[in-house]
């Protein structure tokens, strides 16, 4: 439960405490240890239900806060839960990786300005980003590429997070 907020951790602990208390209470005056063991047995393996609970809450936290650390943690956690969900989260991981790589081009622009930008020519060619084939091509943005690429990366990041929030919800009828 360590990746969760203090409020979520407290909520889960209280709910489990309540469940164990109620379960043991309904068993009457049996041997307390035996009653507790039976309660824990019927509760199930924590690896089974707690992992789902934690991953679900982490994903909710990530899509509400737009925090990249929470998003990374949520994606890593949910990748372990379920085959289909794994593919969905791998796809989002690749999307975020692309956004991160794209935003890095703004840094590369400062290091190798002639190789990064928006390249065009008279024959309809255009390329946005890092290019090795710049002979005969004209770079039109100059250092405006830096704020533009950062702005695009921010917009894509927000859209990807909103999209992940949508995919996190089940379709309603």
């Amino acid at each position, binding site marked *: 439960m360590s990746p969760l907020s203090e409020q979520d951790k407290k909520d889960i602990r209280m*709910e489990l405490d*309540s*469940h164990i208390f*109620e379960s043991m209470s309904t068993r009457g005056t049996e041997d307390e240890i035996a009653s507790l063991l039976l309660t824990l047995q019927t*509760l*199930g393996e*924590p690896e089974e*239900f707690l992992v789902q*609970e934690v991953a679900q809450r982490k994903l909710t936290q990530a899509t509400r806060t737009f925090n990249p650390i929470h998003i990374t943690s949520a994606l890593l956690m949910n990748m372990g839960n379920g085959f289909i969900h794994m593919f969905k989260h791998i796809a989002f991981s690749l999307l975020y990786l692309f956004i991160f790589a794209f935003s890095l081009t703004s840094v590369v622009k400062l290091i190798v300005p002639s190789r990064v930008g928006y390249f065009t020519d008279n024959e309809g060619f255009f390329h946005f980003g890092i290019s090795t084939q710049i002979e005969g091509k004209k770079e039109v943005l100059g250092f405006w590429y830096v704020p533009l690429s950062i702005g695009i990366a921010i917009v894509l990041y927000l859209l990807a997070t909103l999209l992940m929030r949508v995919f996190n919800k089940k379709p309603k009828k």
Partner: protein
Amino acid sequence: MLCILLNIVPMNDNFIAKWESQVKKGVLEFIILIVLSRKELYGYELITELKSRTDYNVAEGTIYPILNRLKAEKLIQSHWQEMESGVPRKYYKITKEGTKLLQLMITSWDALATSIQRLKTK
């Protein structure tokens, strides 16, 4: 012949058991919404109700991620209530949105049941 039968019967039982497990997992949210539409219940009470009214035999802890998911969808809501025992209970109840969705799910379920019945009788 006996050897062949001995091999086939356990495989069919296993298939049925897996199929039933998948079907039950699929309708568990539906069943939870039906139960909560009748009465506000706390977690352990809901599990007891499910076990007594259906033949669900899942690990009790698996209910909580489902409740959390329904709550995130705003189909149910919860609140903590202090008890004399000193151990508070978390009560769940269905929301208005949950009630509307449940009606649609019931309609959908009835339509599915009718289609299957028609297929069986053809």
